[in-house]
């Protein structure tokens, strides 16, 4: 009997140790998923921090000439006022490239702001209507494609063409006075966009 109790004790103790060890192993494995997640997050955050610091350093090192050039491109893409001459010049320049004959051109000036009127939106729209004659639909599509990679930025609201006679409604944009409460940021994506915009057609 004593021998049996002795055996049971030993097996029980050994069994308990085995179960305990397996339980600890299980606990250990549960820590792996958060460990991998944390390692990935540290890597991503470190990369973000390095990018942010590099971008900030680049901004601080921007010379006044570089800054002026950037503002010039951004202002051409998004003028600070309704500039009918600029828009007309762009449309006729692009149209001439694709043998499109502009027959009429009109601008819906929209609301006129007075003095200290505050606008919530950072930019407003200006609708331009154009009647044109096109030698072919290929020319018309090239005309539209070229307008989409030209400054100032525009968007086709509608285009209709019937046997060479077309009418096009374009939306142009202009920026409103800067509201001081708006957060300001210039990201590496913005820098890349500026480089892209600098290669676009200009009037």
């Amino acid at each position, binding site marked *: 009997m004593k021998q049996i109790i002795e055996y049971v004790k030993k097996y029980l103790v050994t069994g308990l140790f085995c179960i305990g060890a397996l339980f600890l192993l299980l606990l250990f494995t549960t820590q792996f998923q958060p460990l991998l997640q*944390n390692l990935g997050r540290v890597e991503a955050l470190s990369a973000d921090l390095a990018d942010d610091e590099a971008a900030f350093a680049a901004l601080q090192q921007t010379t006044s000439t570089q800054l002026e050039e950037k503002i010039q491109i951004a202002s051409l893409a998004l003028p600070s006022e309704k500039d009918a001459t600029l828009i007309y010049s762009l449309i006729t320049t692009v149209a001439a490239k694709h043998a499109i004959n502009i027959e009429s051109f009109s601008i819906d000036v929209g609301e006129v702001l007075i003095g200290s009127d505050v606008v919530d939106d950072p930019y407003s729209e200006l609708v331009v209507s154009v009647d044109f004659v096109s030698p072919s639909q290929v020319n018309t599509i090239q005309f539209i494609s070229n307008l989409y990679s030209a400054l100032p930025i525009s968007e086709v609201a509608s285009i209709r063409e019937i046997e060479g006679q077309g009418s096009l409604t374009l939306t142009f944009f202009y920026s409103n006075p800067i509201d001081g409460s708006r957060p300001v940021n210039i990201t590496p994506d913005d820098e890349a966009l500026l480089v892209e915009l600098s290669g676009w057609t200009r009037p």
Partner: protein
Amino acid sequence: MSLDVNLSIEQEKKEPISRVLIASVIFAVVATGAYFAVTFYNFLLGSQINSLEEQIDDVAVRKEQFLTSQDSFAVLGVKMGSIAEILDTRAPVDTRLSQVFSQLPDGVSAVRMDAQADSTRMSLVSESLSSLNTFLDVDLAEISSADPTIEKIDVLSFGRTEEGNGYVAVVLITYVVS
């Protein structure tokens, strides 16, 4: 002599149990150590994550202070935000028209097109019924599968031209507008 032999057998029987016990103890100690080591390392990583997030926030604050302290940067920053938003949201009417017209087979031409942000409507004519049919059956399906923004394509009408020398189909492509 016989007693010695019995003792020896008893010792051999005990040995496997002891080995399992020792092995499980070692295993438990190692597993415990590893668990605490990994937990501690996770804790350190958590602290490192917090520190990195604070540093990123700090750079963002310093950057914004720098940008807002200089009017030129503020103008550029606001304009770039607007430009990016406009470009992201403008309807790609140019690429949609290019895509559709590049698929027109020889002998099929569009006599009328009417495109807006949410739709493109075309009147297509051809002297060849099979060319027009190929476009409607095959090419329109390819156009649809290539552009996930297409919601549906309807062939609104199909028939002979007024002159009777060809066929005309009116197609309406509707796009998903976000």
